């Protein structure tokens, strides 16, 4: 999902910066507010950020014969709502742009929109939807992480489709071409990210149940109803 440095026309690069900046500023405020008002959630917030940091660094093989990396943004979106992920993803993407020449400073706005805004919001929407239908928490977490990951790659495809329309088939054709590079490769990775997310979430409910209850991620339960 990293659009390479310089690989968006100037106008597009500026436009994506303009779109993403308010989300990132709002996200930075949300992070500060959370750590100030609830010092208890600092460790959990650090865990969510670290999860994204690790997952976005690991390139994994896919069924299509190419390799790609997960994003890990769905977990933080489920725990702390999506705004914090706009900020945390920006930290990750700046690190990769500066040290790894992966992604870039000029394409940062577009990449932040795909990974830090679109992905987390889609994941969060799926999470809320599954909660409303009273699906099991594990199912909700799995779907949230999987869809956050897939949405990020679809948005990247759309961004590239907009920037480089196909001479014959236009933007839609170009989008389809980029989606064919990204989307199918991403399916097994997104599923894997969902499974890993469920494992981490189960670990967190083990070690941080009071924090998760306060955040409203898991419902408050009477002690005798909690399975141990």
């Amino acid at each position, binding site marked *: 999902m990293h659009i390479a440095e310089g690989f968006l026309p100037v106008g597009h690069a500026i436009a994506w910066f303009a779109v993403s900046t308010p989300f990132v500023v709002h996200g930075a405020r949300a992070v500060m507010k959370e750590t100030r008002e609830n010092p208890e959630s600092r460790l959990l917030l650090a865990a969510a950020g670290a999860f994204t940091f690790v997952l976005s660094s690991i390139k994994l093989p896919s069924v299509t014969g190419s390799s790609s990396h997960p994003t890990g943004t769905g977990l933080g979106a489920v725990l702390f709502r999506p705004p914090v992920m706009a900020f945390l993803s920006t930290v990750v993407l700046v690190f990769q742009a500066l040290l790894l020449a992966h992604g870039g400073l000029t394409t940062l706005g577009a990449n932040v929109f795909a990974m830090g805004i679109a992905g987390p919001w889609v994941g969060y929407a799926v999470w809320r939807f599954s909660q409303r239908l009273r699906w099991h928490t594990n199912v909700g977490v799995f779907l949230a992480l999987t869809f956050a990951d897939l949405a990020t790659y679809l948005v990247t495809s759309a961004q590239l489709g907009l920037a*480089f329309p196909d001479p014959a088939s236009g933007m839609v054709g170009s989008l389809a071409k980029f989606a064919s590079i990204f989307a199918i490769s991403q399916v097994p990775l997104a599923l894997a990210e969902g499974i890993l997310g469920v494992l981490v979430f189960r670990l967190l409910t083990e070690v941080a149940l009071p924090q998760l209850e306060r955040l409203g991620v898991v419902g408050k339960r009477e002690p005798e109803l909690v399975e141990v």
Partner: protein
Amino acid sequence: MKKSTTNVLLAVALVALFAVSFIVGGARTDPEERFTGTDSAATSQIEEANPEYVPWFAPLFQPESGEIESGLFALQAGIGGAVLGFAIGGLWGRRGAPLRDSGAKAASIVPVTTEPTP
């Protein structure tokens, strides 16, 4: 189902998913272009379809070789892993302690969370 059984099954599913990806992905491609990154594939697609496009900005710093690059990726994973471990370790140490801001409600959770886990 026991909690630990579910966790083991999830871990097995995770490994199986990658084993299948690896075998299927490997069988479908030539050895030379096997498992290239989708990000670089997208860049090649742009270059192919738009030969007149000239990237207008280059990375300020570029790892000089694949080895250095993978080392820096490992550094990123290492930092993330260390922070994740620290955070979970910290939470683990605090397990069962009531939250500062909601003492009364959190107190009802204490009997559960202080129970030793197998």
